[in-house]
């Protein structure tokens, strides 16, 4: 298995723990992730709301790089996943849009052909690697560790575009959590947005959403796993800002999987986690 690896701005510059664990986990599973030369910002979900054609062109420029490599794209960011998947779908379906966008892409010396697909890392694990392979590789069971999954909106929605899991009852992440021996836990606000996208407009709203979720998860579980840089930052930062830090461990899902497969805390970048890293590492020793 070989993919073009689209890391995305925020993970590249802010979350080495996520990127490192994803890369090491892939290696462990025999999945080759190839960096994409010349790739840059996907366009952002904000741009989608500001200009349709520019949004398509920015996404298509990156997809065209994967096409040149002859590979499908794997992403670790929900925002990038949504932006690239949506553009890919629209452009594959409409020859008119494709022609318009290619006219723009010529400015960057690129051509979009529609020959690559886009997938979130989590979906790649579930669909391409498979739960059986993952279970076979587990060396350290997280038995008794209660883990809540926060999927994040753009891995799932709009469902008619993402086609990845049931947006009302997603199971992909919970199945991966269960594969490590941990117990997946349900909590009432599981499907609620982290409100990360309004951080720059009304910061207090984001922290309020984050903290409500953290408190709720704490009642049901021992840790929260995420699959999106913005969700992770929301749940980590909202706790760090509290005088009484709730100290609910927040982890990137490949960190949990990597630890279960025998990678050490440094290999999964656990030192970068600012809340609860010690509690998680303690689990490994116990």
């Amino acid at each position, binding site marked *: 298995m070989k993919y073009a690896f689209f890391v995305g701005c925020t993970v*590249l510059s802010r979350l080495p723990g996520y990127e490192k664990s994803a890369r090491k986990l892939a290696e462990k599973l025999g999945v080759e992730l190839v960096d994409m030369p010349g790739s840059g910002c996907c366009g952002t979900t904000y741009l989608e709301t*500001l200009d349709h054609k520019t949004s398509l*062109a920015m996404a298509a420029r990156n997809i065209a790089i994967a096409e040149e490599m002859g590979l499908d794209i794997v992403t670790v960011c929900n925002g990038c996943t949504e932006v690239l998947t949506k553009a890919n779908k629209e452009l594959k379906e409409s020859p008119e849009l494709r022609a318009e966008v290619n006219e723009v892409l010529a400015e960057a010396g690129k051509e979009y052909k529609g020959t690559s697909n886009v997938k979130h890392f989590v979906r790649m694990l579930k669909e391409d690697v498979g739960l059986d392979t993952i279970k076979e590789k587990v060396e350290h069971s997280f038995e008794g560790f209660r883990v809540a999954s926060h999927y994040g909106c753009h891995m799932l929605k709009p469902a008619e575009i993402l086609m990845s899991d049931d947006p009302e009852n997603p199971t992909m992440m919970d199945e991966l959590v269960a594969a490590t021996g941990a117990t997946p836990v349900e909590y009432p606000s599981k499907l609620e947005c982290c409100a990360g996208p*309004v951080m720059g407009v*009304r910061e207090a709203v984001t922290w309020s959403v984050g903290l409500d979720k953290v408190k709720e998860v704490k009642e049901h579980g021992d840790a929260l796993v995420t699959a999106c840089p913005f969700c992770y930052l929301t749940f980590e930062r909202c706790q760090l800002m509290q005088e009484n830090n709730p100290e609910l461990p927040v982890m990137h899902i490949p960190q949990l999987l990597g630890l279960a497969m025998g990678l050490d805390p440094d290999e999964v970048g656990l030192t970068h986690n600012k809340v609860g890293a010690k509690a998680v590492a303690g689990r490994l020793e116990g």
Partner: protein
Amino acid sequence: MTIKVTEEAKEFRKRVLATPGAEKIMHCYQCGTCTADCPIAKRVKEFRPRNIARLVMYGQKERLMEGDLLYLCAGCYTCYEHCPQEVHVSEIVSALRKMSLNEGHLLPGFKALMEGVAEMGYIYEIDEFANEMREDDDLPPAPEPDTGGIEAVMRATGFLGKVEASTR
């Protein structure tokens, strides 16, 4: 407040309706599912997706374009998924943001973000120092984005020019 549906208001509504994704606004029967399920509406009293739909139906442009109302949508697509009439309020908000930008307005934070992408190729600068930090983590250097190509794409559509000329 009394609402008067003037010719100007009708014209505005027509323009919103003509934006892809916002075509179904008149199908809204004000059930409020969108507002009940909106994570922002639970915490910000002036942000009510149902009201946004209604205000568009009555062509109340000024009230919609006021302050940062349009930028409070997190784009989580909950209303998109849950609307029984497939009105897709999130897409209506997008249509209004596009219209606002076409009229020369953009929130300063969004303007800075987009200009930054055109300049750096990423939303943050990933410089030599950042790459040294990455090396310490056993990570390869970040792909060097084709900044010239990215800026050219953003300019060719006319988007970057609009962003640069925009005011709040």
